[in-house]
């Protein structure tokens, strides 16, 4: 087997373009996938025009004021704003493609909010202009702006409720409020009830006022009870739900490390499968297969050599790749021996898949195309999130993912990179079983390999 390995390495050495493509192409794809998965989406460029004149963004709520402008800054934090000075300019920016959208804050917005809060009338409106035909881009801009607007909406509501609750407290318990620049003391319902109850006690027992004042005290008791209940209820409306998150699966792989693992496994898969399939098919296209297996090498050893060659080369390439990626993403170097183990097992399993493909396809060009066509869906199926598809389809995808090495290799390498669950043992066992299964398939395919 050693001499076959030496021969194949010599052949690869004399095919620099092929080797270059085989290494550079999957790495380029893998890095793109990795960056796409690990980089948060950028902020959309949005033309922003605030028509509310400076100093006129205040809304008076009883004794307090809130400023609409302070909430606009929240909106701006989630976009990349282009400040414009008219609505027409904002729309032009969108039409010209300088901005994906335009947000216009109308000058009447504070008054509209004021009217809604104080009188329950009106519908405060912010204008949004979009000019994108790309549905994905549209969804992205929509989500970025809508979610931020919703947050602004909630913040304003919360502030209004806070003012309302404070006012209720003052009605209930008394306090001081500013009215026309004057500090005015409010008696409060509880104090009023105490005074009335004291007055009743001081009245003669046959006083005709007692019945009337008892009615006032009774009303005050009911009002105090009702308002005391209303305050916490109103306060809770601002934040009706609290999410208490508990991660049952234990520690999850950090996004960056997971993206790095995906990038590495995509490269491992492409290099190994293409190399194994191609190099086995070369034996036939060079007419050497029949000469080799008439006593010089058994078909099983020939397959083992191709698996070792492709798996070894791919493991070396992806180890270097992982080392390079670790300059930018935290990967646990103290588990380096597990990196090697996971990549080697993955390489062997992918190599076995590759020789099965090469054995079935037989021709170099057909084997390369077949390997390519098989590899892409394998990766895609393994990367579809479980929650993204319905029950039956999920079961089908799970079975497909189980039958190919991508998912198990990804689990093994993710664990090797960051030590997160599931452990590395089961994925390695899974890869070993798949390697044997694909090796057997390849051996069966070799029965008709030499037939022309």
């Amino acid at each position, binding site marked *: 087997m050693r001499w076959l390995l030496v021969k194949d390495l010599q052949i690869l050495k*004399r095919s620099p373009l092929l080797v270059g493509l085989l290494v550079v192409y999957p790495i380029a794809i893998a890095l793109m996938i990795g960056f796409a998965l690990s980089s948060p989406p950028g902020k959309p460029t949005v033309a922003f025009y605030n028509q509310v004149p400076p100093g006129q963004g205040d809304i008076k709520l009883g004794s307090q004021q809130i400023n609409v402008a302070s909430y606009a800054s929240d909106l701006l934090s989630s976009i990349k704003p282009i400040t414009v000075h008219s609505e027409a300019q904002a729309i032009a920016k969108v039409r010209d493609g300088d901005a994906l959208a335009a947000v216009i804050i109308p000058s009447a917005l504070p008054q509209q909010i004021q009217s809604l809060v104080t009188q329950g009338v009106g519908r405060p409106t912010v204008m949004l202009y979009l000019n994108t035909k790309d549905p994905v881009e549209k969804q992205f801009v929509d989500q970025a702006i809508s979610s931020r607007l919703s947050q602004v909406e909630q913040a304003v509501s919360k502030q209004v409720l806070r003012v309302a609750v404070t006012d209720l407290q003052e009605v209930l318990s008394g306090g001081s409020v500013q009215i026309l620049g004057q500090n005015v003391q409010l008696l409060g319902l509880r104090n009023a009830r105490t005074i009335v109850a004291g007055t009743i006690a001081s009245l003669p027992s046959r006083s005709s006022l007692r019945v009337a004042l008892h009615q006032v005290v009774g009303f005050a008791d009911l009002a105090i009870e009702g308002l005391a209940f209303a305050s916490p209820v109103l306060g809770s409306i601002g934040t009706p739900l609290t999410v208490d998150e508990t991660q049952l699966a234990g520690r999850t792989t950090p996004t960056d490390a997971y993206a790095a693992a995906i990038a590495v496994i995509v490269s491992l898969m492409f290099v190994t499968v293409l190399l194994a399939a191609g190099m086995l098919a070369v034996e036939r296209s*060079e*007419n050497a297969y*029949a000469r080799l297996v008439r006593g010089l090498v058994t078909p099983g050893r020939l397959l083992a050599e191709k698996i070792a060659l492709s798996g070894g080369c791919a493991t070396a390439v992806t180890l270097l790749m992982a080392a390079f990626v670790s300059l930018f993403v935290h990967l646990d170097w103290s588990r380096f021996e597990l990196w090697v183990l996971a990549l080697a097992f993955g390489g062997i399993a992918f190599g076995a898949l590759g020789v099965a493909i090469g054995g079935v396809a037989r021709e170099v060009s057909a084997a390369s195309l077949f390997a390519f066509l098989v590899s892409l869906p394998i990766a895609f199926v393994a990367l579809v999130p479980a929650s993204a598809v319905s029950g039956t389809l999920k079961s089908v995808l799970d079975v497909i993912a189980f039958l190919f090495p991508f998912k198990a290799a990804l689990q093994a390498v993710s664990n090797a990179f960051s030590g997160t669950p599931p452990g590395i043992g089961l994925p390695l066992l899974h890869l070993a079983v798949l390697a044997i299964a694909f090796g057997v398939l390849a051996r069966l395919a070799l029965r008709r390999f030499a037939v022309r």
Partner: protein
Amino acid sequence: MSTTAGNRNPAVPPGTTLTARSLTKRFGTRAALNAVSFELSPGELVGIVGPNGAGKTTLLSILAGVLTPDEGELSQLGREIGWGAGWVPQTPALYSKLSVAENLRLFARLEKLADPEAAVARMLAQTALEDRAGEEVGRLSGGNQQRVNIAIGLLSEPAVLLLDEPSASLDPRQRERLWEFISGLAGRGTTVVFSTHNVAEVERFATRVLLLADGELLFTGTPSDLERAVGGDPRDFETALMQFLHQRGH
């Protein structure tokens, strides 16, 4: 099939390199080879001829050990059949990205020869390819590729060399040089068995003819024996061959 090594086999007559008895091979219901028997002696240059589908390649593949017969026996003097017989497939079985010497060295190592480098040097000298030793095989002419192809078949110095249509892709000059080389091998005692469609080559170079048709061995003898067997006065060997097949209902 039984494979017997060396002089221990009492069935192998003295002076016989290879004995085939009742070799039969079926592909499905079709008999590609039907009870074919013959013996080969050292230094013989045997041409296997016959129409397309006669069973020439099947017979050579069985002799080479690439195919296993369904019935029959094959014995070879000195070495086990398959391993011992040098096999040269019709299309050169070479790695085009490797040099001539690297191809020879690889197969010498895979054959576990005691001194691979000496074997490489010997074959380069025999095939007169010493000055092309470092050249990639893919850049050689068809004739030179065929020489390397034959050299690989000869690496283990086999008693029997099997050639499947060795001159099929060669121009007349290359063909002449090839036959010169093959005749030299036979002259040194190597039994050479070749299949061909080129009847003129058989007439000119073969010391014996095996004529196959529809999987059956119809004739074995010298080209002159075949002409005599036809009777009359055939214009040439090719005409005699056609008449012979016609007389036998093929």
